[in-house]
C-alpha cells in the first residue's frame, strides 16, 4: 500500500476539521486533511440559522446565561465543565470568524446581527434572549467557505475525495494514522500520522426522514467501533421540528426566531399549550414531540393530516427576503409554497446526533482502559458532530452546533500541537496494521445475492419505524431483531460494479457498514436507557430518572456491551446548575 506521512491528520473537511486544521497550519508541522468530498460540500454548509454566543449586541447577555440554557436544554445530561468551556469561549470564537472574513449580517451600528433562537433566556430562565449570530439564513455556508478560504491561504494539504477506512493503532493503543482510499482511482492509501483527529460529522442518514446530507453516514463512528472503542449517548437523536413535510429539508429555527409560529389544522397556535412561556421557541425536543402529538391525535394539516403549518407571511415580504432568503427558496422549490404568501407544511425530521465518540474538552478521545472510564487514547482526537464531549447532552440547542465545531476544533488543534511537542518521534507501525482494511476492501469483490441499496433503504425504514420520536421497549427490540436480519443480509451483499475509477457504489457499501454500526449502537443504547430525557422519549418510562440515569451511556460493539459513566455536574469555575424540572 502506498504510504504518506504527516505529523497531524484530520479526517473530515467540515467546520470542525477545517477549524482544527487552521490551528495546526499556523505551526511548522505537516498537516493533512482527508475528506470524502471537496471540503465546501461538507454538511456544515447546510447550517442555516446561526452560531450562538453571548455577544450582547442586541440585548443584555452573559455567557453564564448561555451556559444555563445549554445545561437546561441538555436536560442535565451535558457535562457542565465542557459546557462552561464552550460558552466562555463562544464570543472569542465568533469574533475570530469575523476577523477571518465571515460575512455576518450586521446591525445598524455595524456589529454582528443576532436573532432569538429556541431555548434561549436571560437571567437564568427569564425572558427570551437574542443570542444567535447569523449570516442571513446561510450561516453554515458562510462559515464553511470562510474556514476553507483560510486553509487555502495557509496551504493546508488536502486529500479531497479520499474515503477513510480504518484507524491504525499499535499494541499499546496509540493511534498512528488511517487507511484510506482514493475515490477517483480506487487505490488504497496508508496515511501515517503521529496524531489523528476525527471530524467526520453526523450519521443522520440512518433515518428515512432526515435533514442530513447523503454523506452523513457516521464514517468516523464506524472506524471507532471497529477499533474496539466505545460510543457515548447514542440513544439521543434530535428530531428537528420543522423539516419540509415529506422531504426532510430543513426550515431553520431562525424562522420562528424571526417571529414565525406553528399552527394545527384548527388554526390553533398549539405550542402555547405545550410551552406556555417560550411557545414556539421551546427546546427542539419539546416542539418536535408537540408536533408529533398534534399529528397523532388527528390535528395535523393537509389531506393526510401528516404535518403542521409554519406561518411566516405576517412577517412581510421584505423581512423574509432579507432575513430568510434561503428558506424562501427551499420552500418554493420543495414545498411549492412561497412563505411570504402561505404557510410552509412542516414535520419533524431526524437532524442531529447528540451522542458520538467520547472525548474530553481538549478533544482527546477517551475510553475505559486501565484506571477509569475516561482515559485518553494516545494520538486520537474527535470533534464536531461525530464527537460527544458532551455539550449537547440529551438535546442540543439551535446555534450550538456551529459553536461546538469552532470552539472544540480550535481546542483540539491546540492540544494536538502539545501532543506533537511531547511525542516528537513517530512510533513504528505494526506490519499487519492495514490488514483489516485490505480484508474489508477485498470483501466487496466477492459475489453475493443481496444489493446494498435495498439494505440501506430497509435500514433507514427500520430506524424510522423503531427508533423515532416516541419509543418503547417492545418496538426497540423488534427494531433490533430486524437490524440483525439486515446485518445477515449485508454479509451476502455484492457489488454489481467492481470497477476502480470513481466507483460510488463501493463507497455506498462502505458507508452502509458504518451506518449499520451506528444503528446498532443507537438501538442497544435506547433499549438500555429506561427513562425519558431530552430527545429520548420512552412511552414506557415517561419520567426523567435522575436517581439512576444522570449517567452517560457507553456502547461497545463487542457483545453489544453497555457501560455508563456519571455526568460531570461540576463546571470549571462557576456553581453547578442542579437538576430540576425542565419547563419552557
Amino acid at each position, binding site marked *: 500500500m502506498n504510504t504518506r506521512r504527516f505529523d497531524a491528520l484530520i479526517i473530515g473537511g467540515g467546520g470542525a476539521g477545517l477549524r482544527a486544521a487552521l490551528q495546526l497550519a499556523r505551526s511548522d508541522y505537516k498537516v493533512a486533511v482527508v475528506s470524502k468530498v471537496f471540503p465546501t460540500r461538507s454538511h456544515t454548509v447546510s447550517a442555516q440559522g446561526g452560531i450562538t454566543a453571548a*455577544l450582547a449586541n442586541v440585548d443584555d447577555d452573559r455567557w453564564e446565561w448561555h451556559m444555563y440554557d445549554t445545561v437546561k436544554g441538555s436536560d442535565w445530561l451535558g457535562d457542565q465543565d465542557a459546557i462552561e468551556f464552550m460558552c466562555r469561549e463562544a464570543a472569542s470564537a465568533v*469574533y475570530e470568524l469575523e476577523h477571518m472574513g465571515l460575512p455576518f449580517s*450586521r446591525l445598524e451600528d455595524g456589529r454582528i446581527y443576532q436573532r432569538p433562537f429556541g431555548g434561549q433566556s436571560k437571567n437564568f430562565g427569564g425572558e427570551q434572549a437574542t443570542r444567535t449570530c447569523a449570516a442571513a439564513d446561510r450561516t453554515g455556508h458562510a462559515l464553511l467557505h470562510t474556514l476553507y478560504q483560510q486553509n487555502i491561504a495557509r496551504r493546508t494539504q488536502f486529500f479531497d475525495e479520499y474515503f477513510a477506512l480504518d484507524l491504525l493503532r499499535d499494541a499499546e493503543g496509540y493511534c498512528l494514522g488511517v487507511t484510506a482510499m482514493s475515490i477517483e482511482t480506487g487505490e488504497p492509501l496508508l496515511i501515517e500520522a503521529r496524531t489523528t483527529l476525527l471530524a467526520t460529522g453526523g450519521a443522520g442518514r440512518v433515518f428515512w426522514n432526515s435533514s442530513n446530507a447523503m454523506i452523513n453516514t457516521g464514517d468516523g463512528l464506524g472506524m471507532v467501533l471497529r477499533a474496539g472503542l466505545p460510543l457515548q449517548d447514542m440513544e439521543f437523536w434530535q428530531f428537528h421540528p420543522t423539516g419540509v413535510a415529506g422531504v426532510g429539508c430543513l426550515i431553520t429555527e431562525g424562522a420562528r426566531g424571526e417571529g414565525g409560529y406553528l399552527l394545527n389544522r384548527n388554526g390553533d397556535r398549539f405550542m402555547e399549550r405545550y410551552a406556555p412561556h417560550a411557545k414556539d421557541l421551546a427546546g427542539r425536543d419539546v416542539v418536535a414531540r408537540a408536533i408529533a402529538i398534534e399529528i397523532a391525535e388527528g390535528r395535523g394539516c393537509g389531506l393526510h393530516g401528516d404535518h403542521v403549518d409554519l406561518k411566516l407571511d405576517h412577517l412581510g415580504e421584505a423581512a423574509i427576503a432579507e432575513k430568510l432568503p434561503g428558506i424562501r427558496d427551499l420552500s418554493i422549490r*420543495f414545498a411549492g409554497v412561497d412563505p411570504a404568501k402561505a404557510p410552509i407544511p412542516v414535520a419533524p425530521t431526524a437532524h442531529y446526533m447528540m451522542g458520538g465518540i467520547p472525548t474530553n474538552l481538549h478533544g482527546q478521545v477517551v475510553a475505559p482502559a486501565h484506571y477509569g472510564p475516561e482515559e485518553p487514547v494516545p494520538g486520537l482526537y474527535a470533534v464536531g458532530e461525530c464527537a460527544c464531549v458532551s455539550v449537547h447532552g440529551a438535546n442540543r440547542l439551535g446555534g450550538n452546533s456551529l459553536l461546538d465545531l469552532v470552539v472544540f476544533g480550535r481546542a483540539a488543534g491546540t492540544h494536538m500541537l502539545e501532543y506533537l511537542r511531547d511525542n516528537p518521534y513517530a512510533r513504528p507501525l505494526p506490519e499487519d496494521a492495514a490488514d483489516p482494511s485490505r480484508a474489508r476492501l477485498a470483501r466487496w469483490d466477492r459475489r453475493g445475492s443481496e444489493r446494498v441499496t435495498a439494505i440501506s433503504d430497509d435500514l433507514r425504514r427500520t430506524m424510522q419505524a423503531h427508533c423515532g420520536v416516541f419509543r418503547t421497549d417492545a418496538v426497540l427490540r423488534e427494531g433490533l431483531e430486524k437490524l440483525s436480519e439486515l446485518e445477515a443480509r449485508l454479509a451476502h451483499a455484492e457489488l454489481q460494479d467492481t470497477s476502480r*475509477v470513481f466507483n460510488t457504489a463501493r463507497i455506498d457499501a462502505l458507508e452502509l457498514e458504518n451506518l449499520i454500526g451506528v444503528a446498532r449502537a443507537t438501538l442497544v443504547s435506547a433499549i438500555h436507557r429506561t427513562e425519558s430525557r431530552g430527545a429520548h422519549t420512552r412511552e414506557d418510562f415517561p419520567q426523567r430518572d435522575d436517581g439512576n440515569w444522570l449517567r452517560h451511556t457507553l456502547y461497545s460493539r463487542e457483545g453489544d456491551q453497555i457501560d455508563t459513566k456519571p455526568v460531570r455536574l461540576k463546571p470549571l469555575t462557576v456553581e453547578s446548575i442542579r437538576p430540576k424540572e425542565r419547563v419552557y
Partner: protein
Amino acid sequence: MKFRLYRYNPETGAKPFMQDVELDIEPAGKMLLDALLAIKAQDETLSLRRSCREGVCGSDAVNVNGQNRLACITPLSELKQPVEVRPLPGLPVIRDLVVDMEPFYRQYRSIKPWLVNDAPEPEVERLQSPEDRALLDGAYECILCACCTTACPSFWWNPDTFVGPAGLLQAYRFIADSRDEATAARLDNLEDPYRLYRCRGIMNCVDVCPKGLNPTAAIGRIRSLLVKRRV
C-alpha cells in the same frame, strides 16, 4: 420517463456513449436527482456526485437538456423528454457524470479567495455597516458548483488563463468587502488580457446560476474599478 445518459468508464476502453433509460417515476414533486438515484439503484455502475440534495453544497451540477443545472433542485416536471443528462462541459470527464473539477478550483484559488486585513485585530468584531454588508449579497452565496464557469465559451477556450465567472465573482466578493485591504493587489492580479478581459459579456453564467447570482455584473464592476484607477 425517458432519459438519455452520458456514460463513460475509462477502465473498459470503450468510447463514451449515450445510454437510453426508461424509468418508472411519477415526476410530480420529484427532482432530477431522485430520478438519477433511482436509475443508479437499478444499475449501480452509473457514477455521479451528490450530497446535500437541497441545492446548497454544489456537488451535483450536470448538463441537462443542454443547460447546466443542479440535479437536486431541477424539477422533473419541467424537463422535456428524453431528458438528456451529460457531465458539465469544458472539464475532463473522469467517469459518467463526474468531471475533474481541478481546473475550476485552480482558478478559484488563483484569485486568493480570503480576506486580507493586516490591521491589528480588535478584541471584538470589526464594524461593517449594513449598507457595506449589503454589497456582499449576490457574491458570498456562491456554492462553487461550476455551472457558470463551465457554461462560459471563454472558459472553454482558455481554461488555463481565464479565471471564469465563478472565480471573478469571488474576486469581487473580496474587493467589495469593506474589511478587505488588498483591493489594489486584487485588481493587479486581474488586470490581464486573459484573466479578466476574456469575458465577452455572453452572460451564459447569469442564465445558468442555480443560486440566481450575476457574475457578469460583478465582472462589470471590476472593469469599472480598473478604469477608474487609470484615470
